[in-house]
């Protein structure tokens, strides 16, 4: 049995190269870190939690004005542990915005955005804005009063841009008012467009972090 396992490992290692993974990803030297340095990985963990719980929710959720509210009630009342998964997704969204924002503040305070990590910062701001976009689009999906009217006002703000405002408003809402189209649009943005963007940019962000290493905590010499 053991021999078989070793054989299998050897075969895979020959083709994948676990040693390279270990050397390049895990066994990296790092400056002495502290607990503030865990905020980035905490954001990543929250993103993964949101993806997993979100996929579960799409199994039952129905993005139409007639059924969205009822499908959420069904998840909350009738699906086994539906209330737990939705609860984690709901609170995870708030926590993710908070953690990503504090992560940005930490980077600002330690000035980690300076050479050679300017691009990491730029991508990071993109991640922060998309995270907020995820919150904004996800908030409409339960199709309750608060969601409906908050989105009405939120999209109206986007509509106040000079010259382009009307176009942006119509593009966001799919018409002059909130409708089934708006819900479909926000749903598509929430489960496809923004998560794909977010996932891609996270990959780039991580690549840059591994390339340049985590920044060290600045002292008087810096």
């Amino acid at each position, binding site marked *: 049995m053991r021999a078989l396992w070793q054989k299998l490992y050897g075969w895979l290692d020959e083709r994948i190269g676990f040693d390279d993974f270990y050397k390049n990803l*895990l066994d990296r030297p*790092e400056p002495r870190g502290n607990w503030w340095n865990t905020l980035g990985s905490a954001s990543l963990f929250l993103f993964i939690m949101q993806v997993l719980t979100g996929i579960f929710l799409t199994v039952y959720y129905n993005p139409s004005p007639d059924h969205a509210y009822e499908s959420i009630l069904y998840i909350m009342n009738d699906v086994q542990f539906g209330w737990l998964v939705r*609860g984690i997704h709901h609170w995870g969204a708030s926590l993710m915005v908070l953690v990503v924002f504090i992560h940005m503040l930490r980077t600002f305070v330690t000035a980690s955005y*300076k*050479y050679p990590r300017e691009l990491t910062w730029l991508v990071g701001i993109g991640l922060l804005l998309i995270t907020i976009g995820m919150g904004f689009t996800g908030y409409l999906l339960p199709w309750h*009063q608060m969601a409906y009217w908050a989105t009405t006002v939120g999209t109206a703000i986007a509509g106040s841009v000079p010259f382009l405002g009307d176009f942006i408003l119509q593009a966001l809402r799919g018409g002059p008012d909130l409708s089934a189209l708006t819900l479909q649009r926000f749903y598509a943005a929430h489960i496809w467009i923004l998560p794909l963007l977010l996932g891609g940019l996270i990959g780039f962000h991580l690549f840059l972090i591994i390339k340049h290493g985590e920044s*060290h905590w600045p002292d008087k010499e*810096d």
Partner: protein
Amino acid sequence: MNEETKTQINAKYERELQRGERFWPDSIYKDAIVALGIFLLLVMLATFVGVHDSPKADPSDTSYIPRPEWYFLFLFKFLALYGQIPILGKIEWIATVLIPGVAIGILTLLPFIDKSPHRYYAKRALPLAIMFIMVLGIVLLTMLADYPTVAHDGSGLPGLIQAVAGLVVPAIVYIAFTVMAYTLRERAVRAITVTAALGGALMVAFTVLAMVAFPLPAQETAEVPATLSDQISAGQDLYSIHCVECHGDDGMVEIISGVAGLEGKVVSIINSRDVLYTVNDASMAEIISYGRPDSGMPPLGRAYNPEGLTRAEIDYIVLFMRYTWDDRFEAPYIPPLYPPLAEGEVPTYSVHIQPIVKRYCISCHRPGKDSNAYYMDTYANILNSGDNAGKNVIAGDMNSYLIQTIQHTEILDADGRVLVGVMPPTSQLKPDIIDVFIRWVMGGMPE
């Protein structure tokens, strides 16, 4: 940045790596602990706090006060306060697009704006001070979000104080920063630090003043029925208030009697298969909302009646009708209207009487209805309102009008004419409900 500085920075980083740690296992271990903590926190929040949804979206209810997710609250407050500024406040896009756009732009391009190679906090007084005021402003505006800008007497003083805390002081501090940075140059650190501390203290002080001087108005948080059985119960209560008069508590009425203006009108028997099998939920909700004005049914929906029901409430009524009368639907367990009484237990208004009254009496006994001005909408009104105030409920008296009429004994005046008819006029309460009323009155009507 020249090559020499870059070499210096890289050399310093190499030295930090020499006396550093390994990603595995040193950093991963901390990350894992934080991830576990976050997971536990989320499970606790989902379990013990839960998610509080509002009623279903109702596009016709334009009176609903929108409230965004908490992380947008500061922006809403900022817009509200900005809108108070004379003249400039009317140009909406300055606050909605220009200022947030500039702030995000500066944040994005930060590495290219802040070109100094220094990272130590004491050498970065200006950027840290700017960020400090910004974050403090965001936190304070979020805290102020629910406080109204106009006081009860219509004065704009609360809004003014809030604007000082969230707009005026930060603006002045930012102008001061700019002036100091350009005039004092290298010596500006101390001045900037002191200004930031003073400005921050002023912002906090004005926020506290706004919150203490004009406290939050008491908010009524309506409980939203979340489960099917709660919604059916809510629907039954609403049906009892708005529909029973004409359609009867079982929906079997064919010819209306005893309703002013609609006497003798013929109505559909709404608990019949003819109605329930042929009218779907959406049509049923539309009928309740628009009414049948030509046949005498008033519009009950807010879209056609400013004081009417919300869409969610109408949906609850439809649910009640389906699960009570439609034989294709199987009703879930619905908790009893009031907790059953033990031997000798005296019922109270809030636990027992209120839900009963809401379902069986308020339909007629509320302001705007002809019921000898006897209103049963509050505890005080039940005890003391109407033409026969003082006689309706008397502690320990079986001859109280309420007790007599619900047992189908009419109250006659001195000439033998009917003063108060039997209650409810066209049906009779179940014995256990009558028993609750008797025990309540005999027990001294506890609240």
